[in-house]
């Protein structure tokens, strides 16, 4: 699954970040890395863009970019 599939109240772990180099570089700089836990923290009327929370950070992503982030559900 990818970030866009994450529902409210679910916590996920980042498996891989794909996509063009500048997207990966940008996300890396913001501290979005493999292994981190992510939640969906806000959505807009249109369902795009959405905000994801990683720890205390909140990052806005358009769905076009969010599909590049592969995640898995955390079971704990």
């Amino acid at each position: 699954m990818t970030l866009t599939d994450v529902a409210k109240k679910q916590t996920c772990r980042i498996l891989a970040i794909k996509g063009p180099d500048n997207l990966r570089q940008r996300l890396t700089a913001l501290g979005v890395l493999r292994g981190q836990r992510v939640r969906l923290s806000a959505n807009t009327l249109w369902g795009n863009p959405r905000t994801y929370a990683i720890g205390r950070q909140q990052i806005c992503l358009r769905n076009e970019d969010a599909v590049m982030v592969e995640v898995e559900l955390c079971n704990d």
Partner: protein
Amino acid sequence: MTERVFTVALLGNPNCGKTSLFNLLTGSRQRTGNMAGVTVTGREGEREHQGVTLKFVDLPGIYSLSHNRVEERVARDYLFETPPDLILNVLDAGNLSRNLALTTQLLEQQLPSVIAVNMLDEAEAQGIAPDCDELGQLLGLPVLPSDGRRPRFLDLLLDTLVGQLRIPSQQPDLAIDYEKHVEQSLTQLMATGLNRWQAVQALESGGDVAFVLHDDQQALVKKQIKQLENYHDDSAAQLIAEGRYGFIHGLMHNSGSDHEELTFAEHWLDSIALNRWLGFPVFVGLLWLMFEATFTLGAYPADWIDATVSALGQWLASGLPDGLLRDVLVDGLIAGVGGVLVFLPNVVLLFTFIAIMEQSGYMARAAFLTDRLMSRVGLHGKAFVPLVMGFGCNVPAIMATRTIEEPRARLITILINPFMSCSARLPVYVLLAGVFFADRAGTVMFGIYILGILMAFTVALILSRTIPTQHDESFIMELPPWRFPSLRSLCLHVWDKAGDFLSKIGGVILVGSLLIWLLQTFPQGADQSFLEQLGHFLAPLFAPLGFGWQETVALLSGFIAKEVIVATLAVVYQMGEHDMVGLQAAMLAGMAPAAGLALMVFTLLYMPCLATIAVIRRETGSWRWALISILMGLVLAWGGAFITYRVGSLFF
């Protein structure tokens, strides 16, 4: 010891409170916004301490030294070309890990640094304040608490800076253990003569660095990056970042916890501001409230100023003998300048609201809420801040578009910015809405602003279809934490803006009023003044819009600066009366309400003022776009005013 000047550069992530700290250190007046990228070029300020002059440079907020964005390049090139004597690395105590990633780069490069842990009060309130001494020992350099809002840690910080400048402590030698393939690549690069940090940076940035890389080194970098990509699914930059965070994780483990959760208050605020269904209505409601408050609250002090100005006019009129001197003072100066001065409270209020939105962190959330709308017309959420700033003044707003990287999106944002009604146009609306729609003034003004926004979107849509497209830049933005605006920096900011407005009154508007008065007074004894002649000559052009020669003249004068429009109306309508009440009565008698509305629409849409034209020319790099902006404005204004007048005549 002889006095010396030392340069200290402030460096840190966006929204770490760097600019507030800079303000506190230098006492300089400039804006601090809670939105990534407000400081695009470095600012400077000085301070004396213990007989040493410290020159502080405020660099743009960046996340990394090796990612190829405009701000990052500015900071990286600055550090490389004019190395400061010392770097003050500012960290946000509430988000230490991410902030420390930049620190590890500074340490790898062995740049002389002192660390200031900012926003400690926030972190303390959440019980996540790091132990500065512990962190300092682990990193091997001075780590101090700091507070951009209050001077409580200032002396200690300054003492340490001066101490470090006089007798620098031993530079720590930081070597992060990266993943083994990365280490192999680094070894190969170092064999070509690069330092370790240079090799790291070359890999991390894909070879785009400030120092010189020879062609063979460049080729090797590309080859290594490709190889790493093959071994792992991750890019070199990702692998290196993982190494950095691994190192930081170890540090944090030793020096205090890294907080995970948002506080209840933050959570609660975001659950409303970013609510899927409520967020957007709340945003529109807040905008409406802002304009309503600007009008209603501003009316009280405006009345006092008006009363004072008209009392001064009457006092001068009765005290001076009849003649030209009395006329120039009373009908020229006081009528013109007083007519604009009345709007100072409105301008101050509007800037206060915009500054509060920016500093609290709401502006970034608004960008998030509006991104979808913006993307429909070829813009993105980041265009939102410059557009809202346009409500204050289009000149800094157009400069703020530098945060938008994609040239086409930036150009469109620049060209539509003049449709965001700046505060100079506010006096015209306040006057006209007050005259013709006294009961519904706030609503009419809100409508005018909305019209400007709709026009901006329409034009953006057309432009985005006509200007050739390049690849769309994605919208990746960090939401800053909610922060209570600091009264000190709010006051500094508003005081600054009020000062701008007043100095304009003292300059452009003073000269404009006098010029208008001259044109109106001479030739003496003739049937018609120069001004009337000019007005009558051009009036046929504006007659279909319901404007008389007075309005024609006022609009002409607005080419210089929009504030002059009201000053001109005051001068041409005055005819011996000295107050706004008199002007309002005269206008009510001379114009239909529909024409009043049309005049507001024309003022909203027609060409930008001289300063804005100059800044459009500078930021787009050509007169072509400045000319297009002027023509587009004039055509839209005439058309819009025509429709407004014709349709409005049916209703009023």
